[in-house]
Structure formats: structure tokens, C-alpha cells
């Protein structure tokens, strides 16, 4: 394991270079800022900054975007604990106990525990990446097109069925995303697909327009006049309110350890991102607790364990993204898209060919988390004030950034129009009970699934059974089958239980 530390040293040298350090700092600062603002999410922030990164070097670009991602997780905790507003899905669980604590006047303590748990979880998640990533890379070098194709299928299935909402609808959204990925000129044959004679579509759909339409415009339409004005007058957290008592720490520490472990495990299973980790860890914590009745009424463990789980799995999520080039959720897909725009294809070669990016990223996680610790603890009063910015002033400004961001990606008004269409469709899909995140996952992976499927078919001479003849691929396909069967089974059980409940 010693070589890994030598390379980590190199990573720190990269991440501490003034230029990179500046972008990393800017990333976590923007992430924290956006995370705190009610009604804004990490997805919108990352897609907004995407056009800006076109002008940066790849290392700086990825350090910044990753910083936005985990920075927004820290900021989101403030919003959910103090206002009961979970801006990001993983924090929905933190609200359950965080908000009651605020109402008991212990909001400061809850925030402190959340920050400590986040930092601890993230540190372990980074360490996990440090050890697992090189090992996974060595295995991944053996993968041919059949294996890659099967693993991508597993990733897509897990990403679409394990997320929120109905699994079938998730699969439908992933398929729509895959379809959107085929729009434009086919690289293999030169045929124009789904273009309908519109010249601007020959180059395909831009990732920026898709992301900002789905997570910018559609979100504004959903939230406008819906997000109640925040009554934050009673909230006043100062630094000295944050010191947790010994009793709080005694309760929170074991919860943090359990949460971190669950988060680390979840990050290793493709498709189970921070959201699942936080839900699972909360349920588990409630199970092992000797006083489960306290949960939901301000149990400090209920803040510590989901926060630790969220952050450890956030960092761990980078493992499959960077080593296999297969993102676990939509945020990772977006970061992957940012790398591909820079001309870098993540995959097993990344560590060897682009050591600056890989090790620099890991080192920057630590630096970024320490920066966030410094941003959060002494400056808590400032962030709490930020909570009072009303959404009605926020979204027109955000709309302007969306328009100008999309335009500047390619200097094209057509892309702005495309974003409007995507936004409207995204809103309609949401109304019909679909969650848009898997669209992005499918969109990013689509072209690579097709390419690898094509290669596998070329090698095998058109024999579809080839996927089952390769041992690794066969195992992965079996996992896919298990996943589908489990979902169908759960659905049938739920259906029967509900029928039974409705009958008498």
C-alpha cells in the first residue's frame, strides 16, 4: 500500500498548487452557498458552473465541480436542520431529528454534530477510495466490451430502480435518457438520428441544456409560489451555541461510526448513492437504539448517523465513477460529463494516464473538507443569515444565470430554446410522477453502452449469448436479474398487503 501514499503526496502537490487550490476553494464556497439557499440544489449549481469550466484546465475544472458537490451537502444540512427544508434528498432524514432539536433550542448543537459527523464520514469515505480505487482499477483492466456493457446495464438498472419513486418509471426515464443520448450524427455510420432536419441537432444534445432544463428551469416552475416564505426571524445561531455537551458527544459518536460504515458499504454498490445510505443508516440506528421512541423528537443520533452516511457515500461514489467510468447517480454523471467535455474518458486508464486528476482529486477532497469545516464553524452566523434570502428574489436571478450559462456553452440561442423545451417536458414528466435524475444517467452512458455493445457483437459475430459466455459478464447479468426479480417481488408483497388491508 506504500506506493499509494507516494502518489497521494503527488496529489497533494497538485491540489495545493495555488491555481488549483483557488478553484477548489471557490467550488466548496459556491457549493456551501447554494446548499444553504432554500430551493436550490447541487445539480443546478454544478450544471450552472459547467460552462465556466470549459475555459479551465481539466484538473481545476474537476476539483471545482467536485467541491460544489460536497460543499452543497454541508450547506444543505444547515437548511434542513434549522428550517426543516430538505433541499437535497439525503437530508430528508436529517430533518426528522434536526428540526425538533432546533425547536428545543438546540439547533446549534445539532449543526455542530452534523458538521463533525460529515467530516468524519467524508474522511473515511476518502480513505476507502484511496484503497479500493487502485484495486478496482487492476481488475477493471481485464474487462472487455461484454463486461463493460453488462456492468453499465447493472449501473443503469440500479440507478433507476433504487432511487426515489416507482422503479418502472425509473427504468422508463433511463431509457428516455439513453434515447436522448443517440440524438445527432451516429459516429459509426454517419446517419443522422432523431434530428428531423434541424441542423443544430446534428451535433447531439448538449449536456448543459439537458441538465439546466431538468434541474434548473423545471425546478423553478415547480417551486414558484409554492415555496412558502421562510420565517427565519427566530433562528439565531452563534458560535458559542454550537459546542456540544459531553452527553451529546457520547450519544453521537457510535452513531457516526455506524453511519459511516453503512455509507461506505452503500457507495460500493452501484446505484446506491447518498440518499439510500442516509435512509438505511437512520433505520438501522433506530433499530439498534435502546430508546427508539426518542427518534423523531430530537435524538442527536438521528442527526449524526445519516450525515456521516451521506458524506462517506458521497466520497465513495467517486470510486466507480473514476475507476470504471460508470457513474452511480445523476450528480456523478454530470461530473463525468464535465470530464468528457475536457476530452478525458474516465476508466481504468485514468489513474495511470492522468495521475494529476485522480490523485489531485483525492487530495482536494481532504483539503476541501477542511476548508468546509473552517467555513462552517466560525462563520455559521453568516450562513444562517443567508437562509433568509427569499426564493422569489432567487429564482429570477437563477433564471438569468441559466440562460447565459446555456448560451455561452456554445454561443447558441438554439441551445437556450432547447433548454426551454427540456424544462417544459421535465416539468410535465414530474407532474406524471417521474423523477428526472435517471434521464441524465442514461444520457451520459448511452453512447458508451452502444459503442461497447457494438464491439461485443463484432467480436462474437452477432451472438447475443456472448454476454453469458464471459464469466464476469454473466455474473453481473445475474445480479441484474436478481435486482429486477427483487423489485417485482417487493411490489407483489406490497400489493397483497394493501389489498388485505383494504378488504375488511
Amino acid at each position, binding site marked *: 500500500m506504500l506506493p499509494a501514499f507516494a502518489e497521494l503526496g503527488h496529489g497533494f502537490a497538485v491540489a495545493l498548487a495555488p491555481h488549483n487550490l483557488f478553484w477548489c476553494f471557490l467550488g466548496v464556497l459556491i457549493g456551501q452557498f447554494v446548499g444553504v439557499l432554500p430551493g436550490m440544489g447541487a445539480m443546478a449549481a454544478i450544471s450552472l458552473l459547467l460552462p465556466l469550466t470549459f475555459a479551465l484546465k481539466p484538473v481545476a475544472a474537476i476539483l471545482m465541480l467536485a467541491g460544489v458537490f460536497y460543499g452543497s451537502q454541508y450547506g444543505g444540512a444547515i437548511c434542513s436542520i434549522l428550517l426543516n427544508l430538505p433541499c437535497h434528498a439525503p437530508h430528508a432524514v436529517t430533518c426528522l431529528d434536526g428540526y425538533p432539536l432546533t425547536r428545543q433550542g438546540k439547533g446549534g448543537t445539532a449543526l455542530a454534530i452534523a458538521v463533525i459527523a460529515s467530516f468524519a464520514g467524508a474522511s473515511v469515505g476518502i480513505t476507502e477510495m484511496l484503497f479500493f480505487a487502485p484495486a478496482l482499477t487492476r481488475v477493471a483492466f481485464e474487462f472487455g466490451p461484454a463486461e463493460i456493457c453488462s456492468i453499465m446495464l447493472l449501473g443503469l438498472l440500479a440507478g433507476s430502480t433504487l432511487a426515489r419513486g416507482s422503479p418502472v418509471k425509473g427504468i422508463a426515464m433511463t431509457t428516455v435518457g439513453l434515447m436522448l443520448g443517440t440524438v445527432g450524427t451516429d459516429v459509426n455510420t454517419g446517419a443522422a438520428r432523431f434530428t428531423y432536419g434541424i441542423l443544430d441537432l446534428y451535433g447531439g444534445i448538449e449536456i448543459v441544456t439537458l441538465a439546466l432544463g431538468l434541474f434548473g428551469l423545471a425546478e423553478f416552475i415547480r417551486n*414558484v409560489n409554492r415555496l412558502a416564505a421562510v420565517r427565519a426571524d427566530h433562528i439565531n445561531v452563534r458560535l458559542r451555541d454550537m459546542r456540544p455537551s459531553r452527553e451529546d458527544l457520547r450519544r453521537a459518536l457510535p452513531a457516526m461510526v455506524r453511519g459511516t460504515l453503512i455509507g461506505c458499504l452503500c457507495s460500493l454498490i452501484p446505484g446506491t448513492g447518498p440518499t439510500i445510505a442516509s435512509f438505511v443508516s437512520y433505520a438501522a440506528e433506530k433499530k439498534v437504539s435502546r430508546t427508539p421512541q426518542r427518534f423523531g423528537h430530537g435524538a442527536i443520533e438521528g442527526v449524526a448517523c445519516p450525515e456521516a452516511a451521506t458524506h462517506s457515500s458521497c466520497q465513495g461514489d467517486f470510486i466507480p465513477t473514476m475507476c470504471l467510468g460508470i457513474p452511480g447517480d445523476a450528480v456523478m454523471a454530470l461530473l463525468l460529463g464535465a470530464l468528457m467535455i475536457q476530452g478525458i474518458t474516465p476508466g481504468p486508464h485514468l489513474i495511470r494516464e492522468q495521475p494529476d486528476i485522480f490523485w489531485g482529486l483525492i487530495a482536494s477532497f481532504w483539503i476541501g473538507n477542511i476548508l468546509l469545516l473552517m467555513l462552517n464553524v466560525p462563520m455559521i452566523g453568516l450562513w444562517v443569515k443567508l437562509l433568509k434570502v427569499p426564493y422569489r428574489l432567487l429564482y429570477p436571478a437563477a433564471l438569468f444565470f441559466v440562460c447565459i450559462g446555456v448560451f455561452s456553452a456554445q454561443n447558441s440561442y438554439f441551445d437556450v430554446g432547447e433548454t426551454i423545451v427540456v424544462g417544459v417536458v421535465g416539468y410535465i414528466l414530474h407532474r*406524471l410522477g417521474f423523477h428526472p435524475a435517471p434521464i441524465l444517467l442514461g444520457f451520459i452512458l448511452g453512447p458508451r453502452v452502444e459503442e461497447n455493445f457494438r464491439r461485443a457483437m463484432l467480436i462474437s459475430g452477432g451472438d447475443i449469448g456472448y454476454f453469458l459466455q464471459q464469466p464476469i459478464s454473466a455474473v453481473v447479468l445475474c445480479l441484474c436479474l436478481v435486482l429486477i426479480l427483487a423489485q417485482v417481488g417487493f411490489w407483489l408483497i406490497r400489493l397483497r398487503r394493501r389489498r388485505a388491508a383494504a378488504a375488511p
Partner: protein
Amino acid sequence: MPNRTKFKRDFIAGGLMLLFGLVAVLEGHRLGVGTLSDMGPGFVPMALGVILCGTGLVIALAGQADPEDGAAEPDAPDWRGAICILAGAVLFIVLGRHLGLAAAIFGSVFTAAIGDRTTRPGTALLLAAGLTLFGCLLFGTILRIPIPLYGLR
């Protein structure tokens, strides 16, 4: 009592997916599917279209069998907000093309801002003016994006 709105919603949702799937199948057919050993450009669209048609049917039928899956009903659309936001984005394109950056920012921000029912016109005006100044300085003067600051075209 079965939940009628949920039932109807899943029916429409499934139908929409079926429609998307059929579009893909048609496009795949037009491009030529080919065979597994010699795939045409339409192979993947065709395959995805078939999958999408299948999921569409499942969504519509499952919604019938399981009318309450516990999912919360989304809020009804807020027409004023939605129209103002979309109009703001459209205005950005129109004004940006013909009147320049300043008008585009001002028009889009002001239009979007009055979509909120509690925002007074004066507040919207101030917000739009402030963002116009900021946007012109940052994007027009410093970053130099290729939209002229002002000027009729």
C-alpha cells in the same frame, strides 16, 4: 376507494412513454435496423423504443392494479409562475438577438420576477436593474460573451 387521479395520472404517464417508444421505433425502422452481426444505425433506437413501449404498458397497467402506491400527489401547476418563467427565458432569446445583452437580462429577470404573487413591481424592477448592471459588467465587459451590450438589429 381507489384514487382516481393517481389512476388517471399513471394512465397518461404510460401512454406518453408508449408514444415516445413508438417515435423511437419509427425512427429506428427508417434508419435501418440491420442484424446483430451487422448493426445498422437504427438498431439501438429500435431496441430502446421497444423497451420504452414495454415500460409504458407496465406503468399504465400497474397503475390500474395498484392505485395507491403512497406517492405524494404533486402540486397543481401554478400557471402565472410557469408562464412568467418561460416567457422570461423566451424573452432572453428574442431580446438578446435583437436588442443586445442589457435588454435581454432586464427583460428576462423582470418578467420572471413578476411571476411570484408576492413580488411588487417595484421590487422586480430593482432586482432586474441590479442584475442587468452586474450581468453586463461580468459577462459583457469582463468575460466578453459574443452578445453586444446594446444596439438594434
